């Protein structure tokens, strides 16, 4: 079979691909911000040393990490309408799912980050009269974020790749955009190939940037 890309023009890109691209980016950003916030809270719970906080946090993280993401997407798509009594739509449902799911992974990163801050720092905070929450807020968390920034960003690149799995509930993301365009122009092979190239270019350049950032941070420290 001969591949031909002559049918691609700006009209195709703007009407099929960009719509999906915007959603993928939006989903990634929402899940990143929400996931890091929720994940940090869960990490603090796990490190609090209080059993009634540690146990639920550990169950949350370990459960979500042992279920395939596709199943989690399906679960939320099934359960949210049952709980709130009306369908939420694939797009919104995906945002809730990814935030909750990624929080489990971000929380493990933040836990490692918090543990990477030397104990003396916390003692120093207490010594100058800070409370536990002030210590966390002003001393530990800023350093934990900084130490873990490259890892958090790498996880976000993985998150961006994983957003393609909203395919399972039919949300219109970047991959879906390529697929629909492929169907409309009867050129599925070219469009799938282009989808792979697009994802590769985005993820590869982002991971190069993260690598440079990593080196920069390493030098300052």
């Amino acid at each position, binding site marked *: 079979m001969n591949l031909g890309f002559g049918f691609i023009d700006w009209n195709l890109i703007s009407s099929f691909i960009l719509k999906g691209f915007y959603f993928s980016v939006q989903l990634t950003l929402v899940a990143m911000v929400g996931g890091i916030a929720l994940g940090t809270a869960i990490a603090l719970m796990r490190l609090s040393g209080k059993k009634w906080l540690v146990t639920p946090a550990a169950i949350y993280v370990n459960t979500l990490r042992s279920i*395939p993401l596709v199943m989690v997407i399906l679960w939320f798509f099934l359960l949210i309408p*049952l709980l709130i009594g009306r369908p939420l739509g694939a797009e919104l449902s995906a945002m809730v799912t990814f935030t909750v799911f990624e929080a489990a992974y971000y929380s493990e990163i933040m836990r490692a980050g918090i543990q990477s801050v030397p104990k003396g720092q916390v003692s120093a905070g207490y010594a100058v009269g800070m409370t536990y929450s002030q210590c966390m807020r002003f001393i530990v968390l800023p350093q934990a974020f900084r130490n873990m920034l490259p890892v958090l960003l790498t996880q976000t690149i993985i998150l961006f790749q994983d957003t*393609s*799995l909203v395919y399972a509930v039919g949300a219109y993301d970047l991959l879906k955009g390529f697929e629909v365009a492929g169907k409309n122009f009867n050129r599925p*092979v070219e469009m*799938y190939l282009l989808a792979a190239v697009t994802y590769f270019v985005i*993820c590869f350049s982002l991971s190069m940037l993260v690598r440079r950032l990593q080196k920069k941070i390493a030098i300052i420290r």
Partner: protein
Amino acid sequence: MSWDWKVFLQDTGSGQTYFAWMMSAWGWTLLVSACSLVVALVVGSLMGILRTTPVKAFVWLGNGWTELFRNIPLLVQIFLWYHVIPSIWKPLQGVPDIVAVVIALGFFTSARISEQVKAGIQALPRGQRYAGLAMGLTLPQTYRFILLPMAFRIVIPPLTSESMNIIKNSSVAFAVSITELTFFAMQAQEETSRGVEIYLAVTFLYFISAFAVNRVAAVIEKRAQVPGMVGAGK
């Protein structure tokens, strides 16, 4: 809402119960995962080893392989092997669908395994390689008898979590209609409208599959221990 576990005894319309269908779907999940794991371990180890050799071309090949298969989403890779490659390269057109999924999942995971194998080899003191070469071993012999036996022991824990990931990632095969657990879950949910019971059962099967892998790996890790060396004396 009320439970209705009898849904699993219902007939699917083709003479078997949903329970029997689920068991065969579980079989497909395990088959896809096992085959992909073999592909991933072989290719991933090879690429990881190449990246630590002194030969520039090998390093370049291993790095390129890893970046390529790490930066494309698994679902897109499955579509590549299922739709794109067979239409460009004819001989692949006749092969069963499962082969496309095994290649995709295997290569995707091989990129991650190559990272770990590389890290495992680099974790060894550099003197070990030089000692091997100084004793007159060739480079392949140095790898075979000195570096790899220790490196593979070091990477057993990360390889365990990769093996568990493969079971989870095999769920993406639903997209090309392999009748594995996730595909079963979607179909059976649609046909019976008893989604909660079906999803619970499927999730439970994923749980015990991953747990079984974890236990097997723990046994292997224990058997492979070298007294006084990495991993021993916990």
